[in-house]
């Protein structure tokens, strides 16, 4: 057996050390620039008066159609055709009879779907009838009648938009949801809620102190949050019906609220009462506390998976803040973010499968989403702002987040692929830390 030439060995060693001294091989992820979905082309006719066989658009009918168009535009998955391109004649019998519709006229302008309807209102009541057609097949998809008290036109427009979404995607969308957020000036803040369409902004708390991280209960009746109203960070749960606050975490040191469990019975907390920032589960009914992380590092910002079996959280146990997943009992902790050296604010999609978070890249913060294995990383925001605190919509199709340019934050909504950005709240005060409510019945 020939003795190994020591010099050859040295050369081999040097080459080998060069190979392994570079950083660990980056995880493979898909880089998606363009969307993989196609918008539904839909034509929405002005709603008409059902009187007799004369087809006449009324002012309220035009307004109803406009409202429906506005709501469908917010979903980002519709291409609303301009009514100037409509061909169909205005008087070919009753507007509600399918056989009277010349589908070819709609197909030729590129519509895959057609919405028509009529509207009647008197002193007391509003009645709207609405029909959705599949133009390609020449079929009626649904016909529905809506009744309400007077001046509820926008509510009915939302219901019609929900039914359209349900018929075409199997999911009713976000029209019956609200977004909670923190409104802040210097170190004085309080929680507000606002409708999905930006209307009906309401002031919820009156703490005028440092307030952080509102989170909805699964039934939408409570908001958990952290407040310094009494001089230090304590966890509160607010009953939105009767407006009362209950202190649920007032331990020594830090008390930060995380998310509610999917069954609404438990609340995740970050506490430092045992000398170190750790994650705990609080059973709200019994106030029983269970510690879930046992690690010397900072463990913070916990959030439950939609099936309640896992928890995503932030930890700096590997040297910098990164996103980890563990079982709900604290076992099997696994790191899932490996790009960048500052990844925080995990939010788990209600459809399961993906986690949105904020990550620092080139000195700025952007919103990302990644799957539960840590693969298929997608960057969702790219602009010159500090984009933070993502929260998924109940359908998992959209994400609300806060965006900071110069020194002020505003609330934005985008689709889960990063497209269709819309500003939801932009006030004189900073608006930040949004949380998407569940669907209200």
């Amino acid at each position: 057996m020939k003795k190994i030439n020591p010099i050859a060995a040295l050369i081999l060693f040097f080459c080998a050390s060069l190979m392994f001294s570079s950083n660990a091989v980056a995880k493979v992820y898909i880089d998606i620039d363009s969307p993989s979905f196609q918008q539904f082309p839909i034509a929405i006719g002005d709603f008409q008066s059902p009187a007799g066989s004369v087809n006449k658009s009324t002012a309220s009918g035009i307004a109803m159609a406009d409202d429906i168009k506005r709501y469908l535009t917010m979903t980002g998955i519709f291409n609303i055709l301009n009514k100037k391109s409509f061909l169909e004649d205005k008087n070919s019998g009753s507007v509600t009879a399918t056989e009277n519709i010349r589908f070819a006229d709609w197909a030729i302008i590129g519509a895959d779907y057609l919405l028509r309807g009529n509207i009647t209102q008197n002193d007391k009541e509003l009645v709207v009838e609405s029909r959705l057609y599949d133009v390609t097949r020449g079929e009626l998809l649904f016909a529905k009648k809506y009744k309400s008290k007077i001046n509820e036109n926008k509510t009915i427009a939302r219901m019609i938009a929900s039914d359209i979404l349900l018929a075409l995607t199997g999911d009713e969308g976000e029209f019956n949801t609200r977004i909670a957020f923190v409104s802040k000036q210097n170190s004085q803040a309080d929680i507000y809620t606002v409708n999905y369409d930006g209307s009906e902004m309401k002031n919820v708390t009156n703490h005028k102190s440092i307030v952080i991280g509102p989170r909805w209960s699964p039934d939408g009746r409570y908001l958990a949050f952290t407040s310094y109203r009494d001089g230090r960070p304590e966890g509160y749960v607010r009953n939105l019906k009767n407006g009362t606050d209950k202190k649920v975490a007032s331990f020594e040191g830090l008390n930060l609220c995380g998310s509610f469990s999917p069954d609404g019975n438990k609340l995740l907390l970050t506490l430092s009462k045992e000398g170190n920032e750790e994650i705990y589960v609080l059973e709200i009914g019994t106030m029983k506390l269970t510690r879930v992380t046992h690690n010397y590092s900072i463990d913070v910002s916990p959030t439950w998976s939609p099936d309640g079996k896992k928890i995503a959280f932030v930890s700096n146990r590997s040297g910098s803040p990164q996103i980890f997943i563990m079982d709900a009992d604290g076992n099997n902790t696994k790191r899932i973010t490996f790009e960048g050296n500052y990844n925080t604010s995990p939010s788990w999609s209600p459809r399961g499968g993906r986690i949105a978070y904020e990550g620092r890249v080139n000195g700025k913060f952007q919103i990302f989403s990644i799957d539960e294995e840590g693969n298929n990383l997608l960057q969702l925001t790219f602009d010159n702002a500090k984009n933070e605190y993502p929260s998924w919509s109940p359908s998992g199709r959209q994400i609300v987040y806060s965006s900071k340019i110069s020194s002020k934050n505003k609330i934005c909504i985008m689709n889960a692929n990063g497209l269709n950005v819309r500003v939801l709240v932009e006030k004189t005060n900073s608006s930040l830390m949004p949380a998407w409510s569940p669907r209200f019945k």
Partner: protein
Amino acid sequence: MRKNLTLIGFLVLVAFGMTIFTGCAKKKTVIKDEAIQEQTAPAAQTAQQDNEAARQVKEQADRERALREQAEREQAAKAAAIAEVNIRDINFDFDQSNIRPDAREILKANADILLKKGAAEIAVEGYCDERGTAEYNMALGERRAQEAKKYLVNLGMEASQIKTISYGEERPLDPGNNEDAWANNRRAHFVINGR
């Protein structure tokens, strides 16, 4: 063949050695200016030429007055400590909560004052700069307060008399948006009697 291999091996060794040694961080030497201390000499006392009895009475009065003045000086020194003039903040590196060497000196001085004064309760407030995530900064600020508390306990203070509270990136000391401002804002601040 053997000679070439030796040459290659030598070059490899040199290259390898260079990659190791150029990686070392340069050490910086810092020259501190010693503060020039000034001390005023106590005023000379002029002796009075009186008869012995009056002199003794006078000396007694002088002693009592001197003792009173001494007591007043000690009182004033305690009041200054209460005013927290000498309890200084300590600073931290970005995203770190470990106590730096310069912070250790300050903590030692703080502990000396606090132990002498016998403070009933103190609060350690932890802060971060404005960068990063608000929730994570709440936790990081708490950690900084806890590290400072641990150090004070190791220097002899009672753990039960020290409370920690984090303000995260809130209440910055310096409103600027630059490295200097951020360095000033990454701090632990000490408040006596939990005020």
